[in-house]
């Protein structure tokens, strides 16, 4: 799992690259949280799943965890570019009511 972040116009863009499962989640959590802690003040954050080739329910836990962390910082979280497989899981879990697709 590789994580790339950029900040532009008050938006923190978090691009995840790889597979999200139980094995990769700990690193993904740790790295993403560090990037969130280091980022300048933002209004919105996008978690970009374009390069996520596989995701199971660990991904749901990961997104909810980041949602809670960002909420405490007053930053609204959105999911962008989920592939059809990720979209199926996120829809099934009702994640988009909490973290909308942008």
């Amino acid at each position, binding site marked *: 799992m590789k994580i790339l972040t950029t900040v532009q116009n008050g938006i923190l863009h978090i691009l995840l690259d790889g*597979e999200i*499962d139980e094995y990769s989640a700990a690193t993904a959590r740790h790295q993403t949280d560090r990037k969130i802690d280091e980022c300048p003040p933002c209004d919105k954050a996008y978690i970009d799943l374009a390069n996520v080739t*596989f995701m*199971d*329910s660990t991904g749901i*836990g990961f997104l909810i965890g980041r949602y809670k962390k960002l909420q405490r910082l007053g930053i609204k979280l959105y999911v962008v570019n989920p592939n059809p*497989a990720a979209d199926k899981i996120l829809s099934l879990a009702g994640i988009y009511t909490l973290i909308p697709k942008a």
Partner: protein
Amino acid sequence: MKNYMKLEIAAISENESFARSAVAAFALNLNPSLSELSDIKTAVSEAVTNCIVHAYKGKRSPENKIFIDCRAEAEQGEGVLHIDVTDFGCGIENLDEAMQPFFTTLSPNERAGMGFTIMQAFTNSFSARSVKGEGTTISMIKKIGAGGKEELNA
């Protein structure tokens, strides 16, 4: 065509990716669509993760193993994949409760409690047998064929 494979792996999270890819590779003979293949990988990943995280409580011991048994049957372009995932861990005390969406025994902060729900939604048949202190077997059936044709026409 009848085919089978048996896989025994150590219950460590490094093997999650291998396990789901191995079952997906086995399923390729049934000519699944991309979406069927992705359903299979997800369902297997959930089952294997449950063994590692819940049945063996994340303990890395060489004695903790997972068996994956697959059977494939194909007839006139329609395929059926049977997947059994077995562990010899702590067992599930209350299966009905464990099946509830969002139910989790671990810290809810980072656990979705969606494993069984996803396995049920992504396969055509799902059942679980569990004996406390002895282990659990998850049996799933995925039909291959109908979905693939729809996808090609889409």
